[in-house]
């Protein structure tokens, strides 16, 4: 029996392939049900005009009960957006990736949320604790307990 996670991801992938991604989001790689990559850019007027970022999703076997581990790719010359909720190692402080994850959300829903997070950014700056966090950050951002509040990570 295919696991719930594989069935759910197969369904999401099928929808992406038949219906396409929302504007500004493109599937880069989805060879298995362990890790997918997307490019993401903010359309229209924003501080990130012309910048294209790569998002990495990693799924465990409990997806969608457990949230995917989502981060920006910062290898191979790729960078993470300079944003108050995005660390320079690509980790993202967003409540829907942690405590407020719900299995109703999907990979595309996460992409859209992050796209709008970038689009609404008022000032390009790193989180105030960027250096300290990046120095000791675990490889998997899900191992970090972010404290979410509106303004600072």
């Amino acid at each position, binding site marked *: 029996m295919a696991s719930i996670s594989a069935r759910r991801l197969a369904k999401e992938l099928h929808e992406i392939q038949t219906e396409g991604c929302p504007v500004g989001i493109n599937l880069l790689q989805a060879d298995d049900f362990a890790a997918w990559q997307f490019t993401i850019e903010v359309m229209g007027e924003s501080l990130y005009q012309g910048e294209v970022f790569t998002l990495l999703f990693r799924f465990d076997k409990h997806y969608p*009960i457990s949230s995917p581990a989502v981060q920006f790719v910062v290898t191979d010359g790729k960078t993470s957006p300079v944003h108050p909720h995005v660390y320079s190692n690509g980790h993202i402080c967003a409540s829907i990736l942690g*405590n407020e994850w*719900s299995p*109703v959300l*999907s990979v595309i829903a996460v992409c859209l949320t992050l796209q709008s997070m970038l689009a609404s950014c008022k000032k390009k700056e790193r989180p105030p604790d960027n250096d300290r966090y990046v*120095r000791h950050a*675990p490889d998997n951002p899900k*191992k970090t307990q972010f*404290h979410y509040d509106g303004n600072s990570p």
Partner: protein
Amino acid sequence: MSQREPLWYCHECGAETRPLMIPDPACASCHGSFVEKMDNPSDDPRGFGHPLDTEDLGSDVYIPALQSLFGISPSRNFEREHRGSLGGHPETGSAPSVTFSIRNDNGVRTYTFGGSNTLGGRPPTMSEFNRRGPGADRLDPGINGSLMAQYLMTLLGGPTGSLNEIFARGFGAENGRMGDYVFNQEALDQIITQLMESNAHHPVPATEAIMEKLPREVLEIGSPTLQKDCAVCKEQFSLETEDPEEQVVVSLPCTHPFHESCIMPWLKSSGTCPVCRHQLIPQPEHHSQPGPSQNTSGNDRRSPSSRSRSPGGDPSGFLQSLFGSSMRFDRSSTGGNSSSSLAPPDQRNNTSSRGGNHVPGGWDDLD
């Protein structure tokens, strides 16, 4: 109480104390008046008259020995060797062992850690050790020295594996932490980070009782539920599945339906509706979502005023949410130390009473 209050030292008991002020300071245990406030670190009375005795056991050599044993910094003062068995016990197992010798005035003492199990098939329990104790001479090698060390090492490699886990966890050299102790700056930083971030609010899982009481429907031809989707797996409910579990539909109080096999794992991690976040159990404050409004009219719409998290007139709900969140252990803790998660207290009781994880030398072992 403040930890910074200076400790006192009672010279009559020879112990640290918090004195009674009656009104002159007196030791809380012996009521002696020969007490001294320890506010000057350079003149610590604890060392007075009790110089550390280092020559007797050569305790300073134990530290490098242990370090070499755990591979922290292999020391050349000790020979490491691998042996198939210990002297006199021709066993065929080839467990690695570490042997080292300590020379002092009384001669040479040789310790062997690890190696084959010479104590029999399984590690003896602590009570068996105690039973040997009574008639025996104090110098009985059965309970001290190398055999005790071997007993401990046998436990490490023993079938229970439980001590092994504890050690693997504790000696996680990669994070520089062992229990409550930290060995380096990085580990301390991690703990500080963890403390600063530990006010992140974790979702509270639904209780077994809540989950049991949820209404279940076995799908039948013509059921209106067949028109709906399960929001977790995103599949429409269907009679055409081989898996009978997928024909059981659970409806949450907010009327949202799910496959039983889809919603139960979620409720065990968060007692909320995945669709509308309706709370089956009060959630920590940050989830500024509608509280568990008892909307029995079947009306899915809830009052727009429910932004406030814990209704003021419901202290029990507030307590429950406080208690609930403090009872929950992190599933993913900071610092790459995720293996240290603990089972919730009730679960832990279950395992120990079941006896499946019998730890030799545990409390329940003593009769």
